[in-house]
């Protein structure tokens, strides 16, 4: 995060200024001293529009008719009951990993290991599903708790290495993803291989170990858990004392130490929560969508979580909004693939253009471009 306004506003400014000649008018770049909320929102909205425009151009170049883009991709995705249900289904895990990433970033912990934590969340849930028969009503809550614990446990070594030995968590979380993935491979090719079809995935969960639907397409209770987590994380960040401490750890760790904020405990709590939420995402996928552990049930969700948290500026409410849009993008991407034969790479390109456009808005939030007449 960038520190701004460091010296009563005067010195914040040095360094960045450039001029580009263009005829009689000249664009001059200045560092902003402050910016209001509405201005910020406007900048982000404009950049989002730019991203959508670039996406439209990419689609037209790939043979999609200009007239059908809006109707197909926005109206059909979000305003068709069936399609909206699909959007909500793909939103669920994105929401949880987005929250997981956001809460880690809030204490300056770059959790790149969400994927590994999802896997261990899924493994924890499956452990209960397979080996803990008994009361049906308790099965799902126990699976959820096991998933939370599994995710938190998988982030623990990283946390220890960072706090004790100052090992960079970006490296360790990233590398532990491969360990987790290979462990999953071992399970699905080994002890947990499906005895029915001998395919490399686990046996199907029994009915009592599956999250029930809520009567709207394939949408299941996982979405409600996700929404509840948004509220919980919002409360934690904005209203609880832990959140208050987290703000200081994020804003200026050294200052937080000086004023007596328990920095280490705050970091431990937030990072364990980040791992636990990732584990919960594993539970939501395994128990709500796949009904088993598959080889790829966690694939790519880790990085999606990072992107969502970044776009949402680590704000839990915005995480919900961004996850919903990302879910929409995923469903629209499917439609593009199926109905327009748009290659998968192009779908990725569109997602990237939108993400980059919003990321670029950061620049215009910090800088002002002025046009002045040259003499």
């Amino acid at each position: 995060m960038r520190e701004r306004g460091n010296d009563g506003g005067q010195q914040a400014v040095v360094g960045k200024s450039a001029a580009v000649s263009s005829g009689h008018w000249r664009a001059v770049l200045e560092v902003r001293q402050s910016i209001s909320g509405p201005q910020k929102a406007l900048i982000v909205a404009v950049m989002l529009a730019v991203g959508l425009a670039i996406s439209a151009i990419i689609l037209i170049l790939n043979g999609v008719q200009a007239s059908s883009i809006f109707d197909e991709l926005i109206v059909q995705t979000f305003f068709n009951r069936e399609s909206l249900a699909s959007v909500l289904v793909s939103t669920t895990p994105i929401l949880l990993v987005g929250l997981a990433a956001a809460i880690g970033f809030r204490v300056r912990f770059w959790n790149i290991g969400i994927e590994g934590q999802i896997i261990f969340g899924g493994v924890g849930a499956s452990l209960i599903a397979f080996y803990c028969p008994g009361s049906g009503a308790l099965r799902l809550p126990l699976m959820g708790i096991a998933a939370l614990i599994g995710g938190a446990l998988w982030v623990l070594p990283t946390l220890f290495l960072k706090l004790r030995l100052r090992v960079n968590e970006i490296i360790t979380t990233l590398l532990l993803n491969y360990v987790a993935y290979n462990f999953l491979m071992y399970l699905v090719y080994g002890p947990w291989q499906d005895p029915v079809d001998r395919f490399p995935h686990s046996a199907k969960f029994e009915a009592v170990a599956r999250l029930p639907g809520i009567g709207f397409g394939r949408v299941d209770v996982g979405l409600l858990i996700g929404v509840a987590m948004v509220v919980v994380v919002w409360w934690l960040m904005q209203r609880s004392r832990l959140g208050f401490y987290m703000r200081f750890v994020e804003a200026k760790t050294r200052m937080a130490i000086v004023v007596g904020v328990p920095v280490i405990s705050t970091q431990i709590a937030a990072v364990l929560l980040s791992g636990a939420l990732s584990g919960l995402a594993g539970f939501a996928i395994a128990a709500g969508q796949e009904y088993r552990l598959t080889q790829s049930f966690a694939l790519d969700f880790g990085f999606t979580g990072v992107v969502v948290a970044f776009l949402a500026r680590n704000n839990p409410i915005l995480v919900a909004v961004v996850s919903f849009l990302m879910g929409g993008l995923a469903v629209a991407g499917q439609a593009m693939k199926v109905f327009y034969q748009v290659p998968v790479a192009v779908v990725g390109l569109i997602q990237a253009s939108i993400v980059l456009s919003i990321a670029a808005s950061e620049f215009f939030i910090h800088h002002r471009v002025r046009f002045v007449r040259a003499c």
Partner: protein
Amino acid sequence: MQIAVVMESIHKSFDRFVALRGATFSAKWGEVHALLGENGAGKSTLMNVLAGLYLPDSGCIRINGEIVEISGPAHAKRLQIGMVHQNFKLVMPFSVLDNVLLANPGGSWRNRRSELAASIRERSEELDFNISPDAIVGSLSIAERQRIEILKGLIGGARILILDEPSAVLTDEETERMLQTLRQLAEAGACIILVTHKLNEVKQFADSVTVMRAGETVAEADPESQSVADLARLVVGEQVAEAPHRAPQLGGVQLAVRDLVAASDNGATTVRGASFEVRAGEIYGIAGVGGNGQAELAEVIMGLRAPAAGALAICGVDVTCAGPQRRRALGLAYIPADRYTFGLASSLPIAENFCVAQIRSGHYGGWTWVRGDRMRADAAEAVKAFNIAGTRNGAKAGMLSGGNAQKLVIAREFSGNPRAILAQTPTRGLDVRACAAVHENLLNARDRGAAVLLISEDLDEVTALSDRVGVMNRGRIVREFSSPVDRHQIGEAMFGHA
């Protein structure tokens, strides 16, 4: 002498904040021209306009009589304008040569390097800088880094050299030397613009002075004909009265330091057996040339640095191994030297910055719910009580000017009625009025019965406030003096090699 720079009716505003309202300025070749003003008077903004970092909203700049519109720092450089900023623009892991090269690229890479290395050596010798082009910037002292900035400008061909508060980071000795260098450059024909708020520097070294207040130029004067008091009046617009000294009401020992040994980040032992005691109701000042272990001593007392040996007690409780939280709970407060690193979180609201130290008391709610309304109310009260200007509802701490930021730190640190206060160069970079306010606050705390430890490199400050003065030299308290102190004896102890 010929006029080098003229700036006429410069206006500059940032969104809604007006920084300059028709400021004027002119400086001649061959002079050291001081630009004086309080924090937030617009000095730095005006000079940033001259250096091409800001485009003014309106106004006119002439260099050598010709109207110019400075389009950016590169253009300013072509006009022979160079600026040494308060926060140096150096790449720490690079060598001096690389840094100079970065600022002055061009030509073939290999030739350019040897060419620049030669001119660094030559200039460095000429100005008695003693800087090798191969030295790594990160390993050099702050004073040396400043010299590199000056070299960078000069080698880039700057003949109008702006220095933004160059002495803020230097000790008295280093300042003296740097100002001598600037004089030397002016005598060789350059135009030196010195942005400062230290009046005696102006009096001693400047040929002429421009005074700014609230974005306007209020006076141009000859420092010869003005007394320091006159200059102070011009800067603040009214007489500033320093609080009169009251006799101390001594209590028990609140802060005891015994044979403390500590090392700095690079492993050198800088605190070597320091011992002293501070009693309730007194201000104990630690004087000394910067770099004699004061910074590490302060960090050890706050619990940010573990001592290698020795003991430390707050209110009779041994806290040698305790963390900052425990020390705070015992009644220790800290006014840090670097308020933007250790004092405030710029990106967070003023209210949160004010309340963070007290949140553990539960006054602002328990674990589940933090009482934002109570925080804002308390902060608003403190803002009023400590006369902190420039706050709006929900404003972030980073929006405060230096003096007001420091007042906010003090307001917070005093809010828990501390029993011991560690103040480390509490007035660095503050203007006359803010300085007086900080001093008065420290004296008030003393009169309330707090033990105040004042660590400062500003000898005037130490002697004016302290009831007792300890001189720190090479990591030890070498001598102690009681008020009224003899500055000459303190000076001897500071520079002595005993």
